[in-house]
């Protein structure tokens, strides 16, 4: 995330650039922005060479400042046509500057056919005041997230003739903020659940223990077959509640450092052999393990738990798809690689994919797509927390029918 001083610096630089720009416009009384393109020709009429030199110098300074700003900036006219952009803008849209000028900002930056709804530039043109819009992202949710501010450029008559559009990439900031909110949410839920789970554990232990006693010594309790039957049901229900309680405890338990240098490839194989799900054997498993992957410091039990969880989810996704397409052949691909400072495990499936509408929620505590009783909705949330405890990451990508979950563990980290 950009630090406060960086934001301040950018703000100052931007203000300086804007001031220089306005000064420059006033000074030359330029009404025609066509001439304000990115080449170095200057509309200097009937001035002495000294004045021309100063103007050229001023323009160069202005351009240098303009380009030094690492956030995209564009000057647009009332029809949203781009008159001028800085280097960052060009880099962001991945086009050379000449191919940008004269085109509309909604086409170039946002890939749209018409102006964006609630465009702040529209407000600026209408009111002559600055305007802004926060957390703007592309319709298809690809690319980043931006804060957009627009500032009016007025002529001598006070009419807003142009508008400076300042776009700040807040993708990383937003990501960090989301993580912060998520971890705060997790911490709150963690404290709450720890208390509940332990309190639940006490009566549950009594219920299941008593039921087990009764099943073990039915004559002692004068139990007939029907009684035994009912007690079995109680025991089963208690076991189910126990599974939920263990999930909750798992989620809230204070972290214990059980770190050890661990071969991730072995961990993947161990996780694979730990899964006993109906239909799991029929799913094809592909292993693409990086033999050179160096061991990483981690809590092997917890990381195995994460991998088991992700493989189980993948297998369930495949089962969901098979329910609609009986002939469908499911494949789970497990791969290990090194990505920068991280060792990485990818778990990919060709199930139905994760619907876009729920993508933002899948790591939330108690979020589940399973029917009641089949899942606590804590699986991915626990995975997220475990990875967080390891200073690692968990990411996913879901396109059409390929979903890949990746876990990243720092290669030279102090462990969980």
């Amino acid at each position: 995330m950009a630090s406060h001083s960086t934001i301040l610096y950018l703000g100052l630089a931007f203000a300086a650039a804007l001031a220089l720009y306005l000064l420059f416009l006033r000074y030359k009384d330029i009404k025609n922005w066509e001439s304000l393109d990115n080449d170095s020709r200057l509309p200097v009429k009937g001035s002495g060479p000294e004045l021309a030199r100063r103007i050229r110098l001023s323009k160069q300074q202005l351009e240098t400042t303009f380009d030094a700003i690492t956030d995209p900036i564009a000057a647009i006219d009332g029809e949203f046509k781009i008159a001028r952009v800085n280097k960052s803008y060009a880099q962001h849209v991945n086009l050379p500057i000449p191919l940008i000028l004269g085109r509309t900002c909604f086409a170039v930056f946002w890939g749209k056919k018409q102006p964006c709804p609630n465009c702040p530039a529209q407000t600026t043109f209408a009111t002559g005041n600055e305007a802004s819009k926060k957390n703007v992202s592309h319709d298809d949710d690809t690319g980043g997230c931006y804060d957009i501010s627009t500032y009016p450029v007025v002529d001598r008559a006070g009419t807003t003739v142009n508008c400076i559009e300042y776009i700040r990439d807040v993708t990383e900031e937003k990501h960090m903020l989301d993580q912060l909110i998520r971890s705060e949410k997790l911490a709150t839920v963690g404290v709450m659940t720890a208390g509940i789970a332990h309190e639940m554990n006490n009566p549950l232990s009594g219920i299941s223990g008593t039921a087990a006693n009764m099943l073990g010594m039915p004559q002692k309790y004068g139990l007939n077959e029907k009684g035994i039957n009912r007690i079995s049901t109680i025991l089963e229900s208690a076991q189910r509640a126990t599974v939920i309680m263990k999930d909750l405890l798992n989620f809230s338990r204070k972290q214990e450092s059980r770190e050890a240098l661990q071969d991730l490839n072995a961990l993947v194989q161990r996780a694979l052999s730990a899964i006993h799900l109906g239909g799991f054997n029929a799913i094809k498993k592909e292993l693409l393990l990086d033999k050179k992957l160096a061991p990483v410091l981690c809590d092997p039990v917890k990381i195995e738990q994460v991998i088991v969880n992700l493989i189980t989810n993948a297998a369930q996704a495949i089962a969901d798809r098979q329910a609609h397409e009986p002939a469908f052949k499911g494949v789970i691909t497990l791969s290990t690689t090194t990505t920068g400072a991280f060792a990485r495990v990818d778990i990919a499936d060709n199930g139905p994919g994760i619907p876009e509408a729920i993508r933002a929620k899948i790591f939330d505590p108690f979020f589940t797509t399973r029917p009641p009783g089949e899942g606590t909705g804590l699986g991915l949330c626990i995975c997220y927390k475990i990875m967080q405890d390891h200073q690692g990451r968990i990411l996913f990508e879901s396109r059409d029918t390929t979903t890949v979950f990746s876990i990243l563990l720092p290669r030279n980290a102090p462990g969980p």
Partner: protein
Amino acid sequence: MHSILVVDDEKSIRTMLLDFLEERYRVATVENGEVALDWLEKNPCDLVISDINMPGIKGPELLYRIKQRWPHIITVLITAYNINDYIRMAKTYDICNIIPKTSPFNFDELQTLLHGLLTKEIFGLERYLRARHTILTTAVITSSQQSREVREEITDLFQKRFGMVGEMRLTIDEIVTNAIYHAPRLADNRQKYQEFTEVELLPDEYVHLTAGFDDEKYGVSILDGQGSLRRETVLYKIDRHIHEEGIMDDSGRGIHMSRLFADRMIINIQANFKTEVILMNYFSPTYRGFKPLYINEI
């Protein structure tokens, strides 16, 4: 017949323990510490099982008072909470055994523990396995060099037989290292051998290993004939590592890690005579996650 008093404010736990234990012992149950002390004034008792969190006198305080007044009574704590949170308390109140209230409750384990405490027969892996069990191998370690071969032999046996060894390689290594380097003492109680050096043990310093399994778990016993490990030392070491005070040094890390990595770690001590550490893993995750504290001293 031994007499046992159960103290717990949760009725279902009291009746559950009563129903199970009365098949073997004379059992009474009470719902809090005050009533317990009262009952003990009037009745003979060999062993008290007490909950930790109760209204009025808390479990540790109750057991402390009992030991002051009736030193012969054996005391055990039981809790639904995370036992790691109580290790410091155990150190303060001289508690050796804390049983987790698991769901389902592990009656077998309770019975094994109580039997050992009441009969003072605590040594030997087979005591902690079910009646139908198999001893896979026994081995004697005579040197540091050979300890690695023994460890590999045992972990290989587990791997071949069960397709799993958990973290046994690491935990056996830690405990055997303790037995070789920390158990043998000089006359002034200094450690006889330096860690990380190759050592040839004298016959009375040999370390005995036994590996075995039953239908729910597999494990190994590591026994030394020194008996220099003390209960206070074990609690001190586990406690400081739980509180992350031992991160910068290795002291006690082995014991702490072994307790964390193995499903069960049982420490049997006969002071100045022998020390046994038993490490066991369950095949199924049913009883995993709740780490009891088991230190038996005779």
